[in-house]
């Protein structure tokens, strides 16, 4: 029973990080109907940008509490720099194309980004953990945890709420929902669908980069980060039902917790847990937990 607390704290903290990766993926899919492999690159780029800026700030002796706004800023910068550009140049071209093509185009982007990162940041691992340090630790049930882990959980919850509010109560949100439901009619009602697509994709990039940035205080950034992130993101997005934000959240929790359980009871299986969960879920619910088939009208 000494599992319960670690399971909740570590599990949910892990779930939070996983959710940050998956939610952007699933949001982009729900709007653009494109499964974006390059999402993993945005995750790692966000991380690199965060450690770079954070590193500068630290060496400039800035107040460590500033590292939190810096994490956000890094994500925003990454999104602004890459989001609209990539959407207009490559992603837009794949709308309505077969999945195979979409996956390959974004996979190619992913390969290119991998090397670009290597060229820019080299192969050594970076880290910048002042955010983790200033928050300190707290002891729960005789085990010391990072307050930063707790913060991650809080942020994830906050993010779900924020996205919900954004989608159902803001102008952009309404426009996104409308475009998703019916791109063509939306245009006849005065909605600039392609602008909405750009915005949605950029939000996706932002979420990915944010996930990467938020991961840096506890774990260094090294090549290969993106590849792991993207498969995990796919698995979680698929389990939740592609395009389902709440689905992604629940899937992330399930995956996070099962991984913790695995580490306690069957360490050998920890790496496959996401896939086992995915197999189990998709065999029972072929379109994921929250997903549903759209029967073709004939």
């Amino acid at each position, binding site marked *: 029973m000494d599992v319960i607390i670690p399971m909740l704290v570590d599990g949910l903290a892990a779930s939070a990080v996983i959710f940050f990766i998956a939610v952007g993926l699933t949001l982009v899919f729900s709007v653009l109907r494109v499964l974006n492999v390059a999402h993993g690159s945005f995750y790692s780029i966000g991380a690199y940008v965060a450690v770079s800026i954070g590193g500068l700030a630290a060496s400039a002796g800035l107040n460590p509490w500033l590292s939190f706004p810096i994490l956000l800023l890094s994500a925003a910068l990454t999104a602004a720099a890459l989001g609209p550009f990539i959407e207009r140049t490559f992603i837009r071209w794949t709308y309505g194309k077969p999945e195979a093509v979409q996956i390959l185009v974004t996979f190619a982007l992913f390969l290119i980004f991998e*090397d670009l990162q*290597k060229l820019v940041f080299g192969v050594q691992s970076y880290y910048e953990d002042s955010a983790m340090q200033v928050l300190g630790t707290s002891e729960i049930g005789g085990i010391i945890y990072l307050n930063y882990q707790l913060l991650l959980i809080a942020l994830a919850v906050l993010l779900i709420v924020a996205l919900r509010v954004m989608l159902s109560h803001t102008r952009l949100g309404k426009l996104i929902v409308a475009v998703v439901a019916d791109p063509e009619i939306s245009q006849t009602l005065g909605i600039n669908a392609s602008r909405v697509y750009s915005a949605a994709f950029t939000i996706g990039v932002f979420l990915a980069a944010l996930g990467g940035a938020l991961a840096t205080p506890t774990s260094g950034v090294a090549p290969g980060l993106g590849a792991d992130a993207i498969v995990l993101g796919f698995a979680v997005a698929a389990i939740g039902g592609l395009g389902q934000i709440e689905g992604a959240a629940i899937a992330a929790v399930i995956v996070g917790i099962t991984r913790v359980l695995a580490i306690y009871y069957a360490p050998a299986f920890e790496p*496959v847990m996401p896939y086992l969960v995915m197999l189990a879920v*998709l065999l029972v619910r072929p379109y994921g937990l929250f997903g549903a088939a759209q029967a073709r009208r004939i």
Partner: protein
Amino acid sequence: MRFALHAALVAAFALVPLAAPWLGFVFTLVLAKGLAALGVAILLRAGLISIGHAAFYALGAYAVAAMSENAVSDLVLQLIAATLVSALAGALIGLFLVRYRGIFFAMLNLAVSMVFYTLLSKMYHLTGGTDGLRVDTPTVFGAVIDRDTLEPILLYGGLALVIVVGLAVHRYLKSPMGEALPAVETNEIRLEYLGIAVPRVLLSAYTLSAALAGLGGGVHALLVGHVVPDLAYWTTSGQLVLVAVLGGIGGVVGPFVGSFFLEIVRSFAVIYVADTWNLIVGAGLLVVIFFLPVGLYGLLDRAVRRSAK
């Protein structure tokens, strides 16, 4: 004219290694991966993208390794076993997977292959864990040979094998079952309404593709002489899809052209531009997708026909 093109390709394949023997190794690798990519291409024709076929490639490779561990040393037996084992696994897994389409098909293949990958790296006693297994030089029809004779056998025997398999697959693709594959993508409902059991169409395709991947894996194992779990990792699967699309999924030759392209680019990129070969491959892929949907082979083919006119 096509025939001339194919003859030229085969000739080049057979002759170049005589000049630069180390290319013999690379070319044999091209054949092995090309077989697997051909399997992936068959599924792609039905609009099904498998990010997990490396599992069957690895399965074939490990089957060969397991046999040489257990003193079944004949090359032919080993390759047959590799093919059959993978075909069987493909049939079983296919039973479940043919129900799925699009992303979910891709995801499930990914999941299955990752589970398999983990098993390979965890079951030390059987698989030697991440260090993998040695594959001893096989005997050929009982004759004991050394590695120096094995490699030409693999290259030229492999080439012959690929030609035979290629012709067979070509016939399959032209048969009703093969022609039904694109139809699954364009209008599955109509197929049902013609009374055709789509699951059965796909299951046979899946089994065939698994068998091809397994055969390729077997050749790989014999060639490299050492098998490791990474063979089953999802990036390997991604590479197979990439190779198939790069070469063009229209015909049988495409995947081999793609495989050739990728291996050559890699072999030379690691020599001259070690840090950017992903970038080169990625860019190449984009170019192919944006500008020549028919793939590299389609390009060759057109060029040849044009020059013929």
